[in-house]
């Protein structure tokens, strides 16, 4: 199993309307965690129409890319909600009792938790 690593996100809070119309850099992974928030994995900064947007580097999350079957296994053992059938898809909720985020592609998924819970999450799911 891969280890959980700090993820070099850019965290963006802006009006929902501004986020709706933002064109994210190609190759970037933009995770819409809330109507007013995006977690962005990208080397290039985005252009936002909201002058009051908060855009900060954020190393507060750890995560790991896992094969899709490994994600499935973790969910079956540690999660009461079902993975959606569609791919690629972004979902959030409690996994192993900890607030987690998941970006799931056809073959693999990026499982993300706050760094403060990384230790417990790894211990509970065997990602140590």
């Amino acid at each position, binding site marked *: 199993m891969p280890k959980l690593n*700090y993820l070099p996100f850019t*965290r963006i*809070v*802006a*009006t929902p309307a501004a986020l709706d119309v933002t064109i994210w850099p190609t190759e970037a992974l933009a995770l819409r965690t809330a109507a*007013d*928030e995006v977690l962005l994995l990208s080397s290039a900064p985005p252009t936002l129409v*909201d002058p*009051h*947007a*908060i855009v*900060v*580097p*954020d*190393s*507060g*999350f750890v995560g790991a890319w896992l094969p899709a079957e490994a994600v499935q296994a973790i*969910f*079956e*053992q*540690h*999660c*009461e*909600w*079902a993975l959606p059938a569609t791919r690629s898809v972004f979902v959030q909720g409690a996994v*192993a*009792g*900890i607030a987690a985020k998941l970006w799931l592609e056809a073959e693999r998924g990026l499982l993300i938790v*706050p*760094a*403060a*819970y*990384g*230790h*417990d*999450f790894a211990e*509970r799911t065997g990602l140590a």
Partner: protein
Amino acid sequence: MNIIVNTMPVAFEAGDSVLVALQRAGLHPNRGGCLCAAGDCPHCLATVNGVAYVRTCQTLAQPGMIVESFPTDDYPHLPTNTQRGPTVSARNLHCDVVVIGMGESGQVAAAAATAAGKSVITLDDKVGQEVVGIYPELMVVARTSAGMLHIHAHDEVVVATGAAEIQPVAPGNHLRGIVTPRAAAHLAAKGVALGRVVVVESGDAVDLSASPTLNIIAHLKGQVLQFEGLDTLQAVVVLDENGHSQRIECDTAVVWLGLTPRDLLVRMAAGLKVRAVGDAAREADLPPCPDAGMVCSCSNVSAADLQRVWDQGFHEMELVKRATLVGTGPCQGVVCVPHMRSFLATRTAAADSSANPDIARLSKVQAPFTARPVVRQLTLGEVAAGAHHHATPRTGLDAEHRRLGAVMDRIGGWWRPWHYGNPLAEYWAVREAVSIGDVSTLGKIIVSGPDALAFLERLYPTKVSSIAVGRSRYVLILDERGYVMDDGLICKDSDTRYTLTFTSGGSSHAEMWLRDWAEGWNMDVRILNQTMSLGAINVTGPLATQLLQRAGLTQPYKFMQHGHASIADVPCRVYRLSFTGEVSYELHHPVDQSAKLWRTLMTLGADLGIRPHGLQTLLQLRLEKGHVIVGQDTDFDSTPRRIGMEWALRMDKADFLGKPAIERTNKTVLDKQLVGFEMPAPAPFEGANIMHEGEYVGYVTSSTYSPVLGKVVMLGWLKLVNGTLPSEVMIDGRPARRVDVPFYDKEGARAKA
């Protein structure tokens, strides 16, 4: 192959249940009672491999399995195992429809759902899948040999569990040698010798022709009046359909009284999408009203007991249950409820309801009482499978603290270092040299937007507009009832952007609090919670500035000033402030770089006498300064007036959260205040009573011996006595004096140096 029954080996054949193995050897798992061999009754319960109350008819015999009967004069003993944790694992499965029971009606239901394009999961106790309960949001919990299943059904749960055979109630029904027709067929098929068999049935339902090995010496329609024998059945007395009573000697009595639906799962799932089909949905047959014999062997309740409590005025099913404990045992009332209903229906019909208004308001045939999970008992070790208790977050320095040998404690919802082995040295490092402490747990939230100022002005009791860019201010945080909820800083980054801090304990609530009010007041602001994204290290002590200059701080910071700087090559937000009473800088930084920053500071400060300090020392330092810890020194009803911090309010502001409540409560008579006390060592414990002239007048909230002052300093709640605060009190049985805070460096010269 043997199982071990009460220390003796007993042979079994592959596929035998424990019950079958026992019966084959002429043994009964317990004292006696009618056997159903179908998991309905409590008469085959035994302790299996150390777990008591296992249905032996539902348990596959395995070589070396330890089976113990219950003690004859007591309940099973409590186990003594010392291993913790779940004993099995749990899997979560998802589907549209769950079908429980794969008899004919279950198969039909499953096929229909599948044909309708639904995903279906079927469960069948015949293959060892025992359903334990159905829970809200439609989760079916089942026990299997491979662990627990938590099955989440989107559409519905179909209960096709069939019906249970009603067992006989008559004197002697506790004997060995009584079985239901299904049990007789099952045991015969397994080659169990049942000897001379008498069949007694209430109708024409029993056909045992498929069990040719049974030696049936009589097959009667009628009712058993008595089962005779000492431990084991020797004869039955039967009242036949012609009204004749006859006594027949036999080894086994097969008794049929009709069926009662196995609907516990349906009855516990009121309001959920759960549907019974087949026999599970049938009407329950009512057996004859029981006049004598054991009605409930789980709780040892006889027909005479039912009559007695009826005569005492307990007429309702639930009350009869509670008065006798009938139906409260392991079988969940499957055996006794049909007889109870029959008893109550008969008595209700016979009663003169005009003379008894309580009976008049009862239904003629009462419904079975509510079913409660669990229907198949499972151990705490099994139910704990898949449990995840609350995880306590850790700062980016958690490993660092543990490496340094810190005693870690859960404080304010986080793992934090309590001390590093020498709290006194930690204390003096702060007061005389320099020390670092992990304050990553502080709440840190950015508010940005055109309404940022207006929003905070309405939220906070301080005059936010008078804070300059690059400056910070200490604030009390009030709820709408005017009670102190938290405290922290407002730091102005620009005209439209502020950073707010909160205490560790308050931070989990702070973001929702801000968002709720921003939405409620329709404020145009963006809110970002950085609490878990930024680490924070407090550098404090007279040599703090010197250390930071070594680490890259180029410009001096004034008290309550903040800005950005690269410290030890880590991008930091620097806040000059003070909680310890000494010069202090909080360095907020990306949490992945906490360890780097910490270690560099420790190295650079080695010759300055640097030491890390834990929470114990921090609490001691702040107490010398009289700083209040919200949650420790305050309670639910702490107004600024009661904690002596009205200076933090600007009552001349047009409005702020809690202002109307404070205006109202300020008019009431002040009843108590949080004040300072001092006394000679040793320090009383926190929580000690404060007495005045023999009367209780309050209690200590914080207490410590102050090394620098050479005496004990305390905060505590003190009631006003005749309108004034007593100045001489007794704490922990010794005299103490009320004094003004702060206790140390009253002018704050050291913090501002």
